[in-house]
């Protein structure tokens, strides 16, 4: 009797394996949009990972513009297609939730990135602890500002999840570690709408209105470069400073000209790979216990965020300066 059961179990296991091999899982990465270089870089990583894991169908699919409605639609379409896992970088947390809920109800594995506050996910991967990354940007800004003076923060939108957490983390860091730095109370957070031209115009306005303003902490990859353009034009180079996320390829000249001293970053290619790797683990019914090792650089010892059972945080940040900007290849 035992033999028979063992045989059946073995046969079943074999069957599962074979079917998995034959069909594989369909894992789709949904970025905020398809043309932003950040997500172009993510796509590079995803494609690389797909090549290394031919057993599953892995690809990235983005909407033509950054638009919460379009993204919602795309996720709903994928749910209808019946893919196995969706890895999403949400544009707007509130509007994407219903789509993710539908996905999970359909039995699809949902992994998010930059969406720590999302409810309807299996796991959310952050390249790092958002608060710590914010603190890290602030360290860079403080170094540029000489650890003193008035500063403010810029996010893509006030509804954006991660940007605001970074900004909060930055402000917290400044309060704790840099007693001579002061947050601009009347305009503590401004928006750039992920648009370099808006960041540029908003920065110009800020410097006009507040002659004492010495630094702007950027979050979106459009913020610091846009602010730097304003600094350069207004003749404020060397007097006011900005730091924030930015792509090395896009900002090599700004870094080299000194308009920006430091840009911070994590590698979207690696973040994309980490999401897919985690999705594979779940689809293969592996148990997730911290520290999680996804086999991707910077994501080898993910820890749960304090108080959360879904948000995993890595240690994936890097600093880009004029010296190392050319070494990234993207």
């Amino acid at each position, binding site marked *: 009797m035992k033999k028979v059961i063992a045989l059946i179990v073995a046969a079943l296991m074999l069957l599962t394996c074979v079917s998995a091999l034959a069909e594989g899982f369909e894992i789709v990465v949904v970025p905020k*949009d*398809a*043309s*932003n*270089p950040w997500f*172009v870089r993510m796509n590079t990583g995803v494609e690389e990972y797909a090549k290394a894991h031919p057993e599953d169908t892995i690809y990235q699919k983005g909407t*033509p*513009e*950054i638009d919460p409605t379009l993204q919602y639609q795309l996720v709903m379409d994928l749910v209808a297609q019946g893919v196995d896992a969706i890895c999403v970088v949400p544009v707007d947390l509130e509007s994407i939730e219903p789509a993710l809920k539908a996905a999970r109800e359909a039995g699809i594995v949902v992994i998010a990135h930059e969406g720590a506050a999302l409810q309807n996910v299996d796991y959310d991967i952050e390249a790092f602890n958002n608060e710590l990354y914010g603190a890290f940007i602030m360290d860079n800004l403080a170094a540029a500002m000489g650890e003193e003076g008035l500063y403010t923060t810029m996010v893509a939108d*006030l509804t954006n999840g991660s940007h605001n957490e970074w900004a909060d983390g930055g402000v917290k860091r400044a309060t704790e570690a840099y007693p001579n730095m002061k947050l601009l109370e*009347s*305009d503590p*957070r*401004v*928006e750039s709408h992920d*648009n*370099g*031209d808006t960041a*540029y*115009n*908003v920065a*110009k*306005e*800020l*410097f*006009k*209105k507040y*002659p004492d303003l010495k630094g702007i902490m950027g979050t979106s990859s459009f913020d610091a470069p846009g602010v730097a*353009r304003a600094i350069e*034009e*207004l*003749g*404020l180079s060397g007097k006011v400073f900005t730091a924030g996320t930015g*792509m090395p*390829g*896009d900002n090599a*000249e700004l870094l080299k000209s000194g308009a920006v001293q430091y840009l911070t970053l994590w590698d979207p290619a690696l973040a994309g790979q980490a999401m897919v790797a985690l999705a594979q683990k779940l689809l293969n019914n592996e148990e997730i216990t911290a520290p999680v090792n996804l086999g991707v650089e910077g994501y080898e010892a993910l820890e749960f965020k304090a108080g959360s059972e879904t948000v995993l945080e890595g240690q994936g940040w890097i600093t880009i300066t004029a010296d190392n900007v050319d070494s990234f290849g993207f």
Partner: protein
Amino acid sequence: MKSIRKFTGRVEFYIGLVFIALCLLIQVRSGQFFTSNNIVDILSALVVPGIFAIGEFMVIVSGGFDVSFPALASLSAFATTKLFLDMNYQGSALVPLLVAIAIGAVLGALNGLFIGYFELPAMIVTLGTSSVFKGFMQGTLDSKQLATIPQGMRDFGTSALFVAKNATSGLTSRMPMTFICFVAVLAVAWFILNRTMFGRGIYAVGGNAVSAHRAGFNVKRTRFFMFIFVGMISALAGMCRTCMMQQMHPTNMLGMEMNIIAGVVLGGTAVVGGSGTLLGCMLGTALIVVVENSMILIGIPTVWKDFFVGALIIIGTGISAMRVYIANKPGANSLRKEAVK
């Protein structure tokens, strides 16, 4: 006296009042509006929306709506930038500008063909071509952000006509060379609309297309060439934007059409076509640009920005609508009871 009343009876006068009131408000709140560098900043921010508004103005005067110009501008500018990047072009910005304008003319001709010769409604056609342009750019051309642009274009975008310096704060603002493009387009559009029979034909078609045909205007050709012109200047605006930002982001311009249309209508251009002036169109657009770029100066918290911009559009159009309402109010002429008896 008569000419004063005539002037105060115009929509431009009221929108001008709103504009001045807003400028004064910003000045009072920030002390920064009437500084040389701030005015230069505003003018420089006006370049791209200003050129777009001129094109939209012509289309609305002719009795239609164009929602395709951001996509048209994006496609023309993207294709041009990519082309010259790929060939490692080292010359001045003139050639790329001309190429973009030529692409714009072809795309505009597509609009003009459907709207002018096939007589389809402009709104529907441009909604369609807008998607076609976007699709072509993102699908066929596989558009990605271009982080660098050819040196000639970069020089054109960053070179300054003059630099305004604020004596107190020491801030400097560049008046970009692209401002010349804006002024040139404005001058050409003014000349076409007011000094050529083609331009008067645009007004005539917008006023009454059947009458225009009977009067001897070639209605179809008028619409066709107008959309070519609109395509050309939209492409130019796209290139100005690209040069000024020193990078080409294919989707950053999309979605601008709503604020542009709002500005044109705010300036007293009749949505049913036929009437409006370039002066009003520019005032309306400038009002929107100033509002968009002065929220921090006024001290409006970021969360309230959209609300305030929307409210201003409603107030602006409301004031001109109110003027019309008062003029037509029944009882404006009192009874001549005495005369009867």
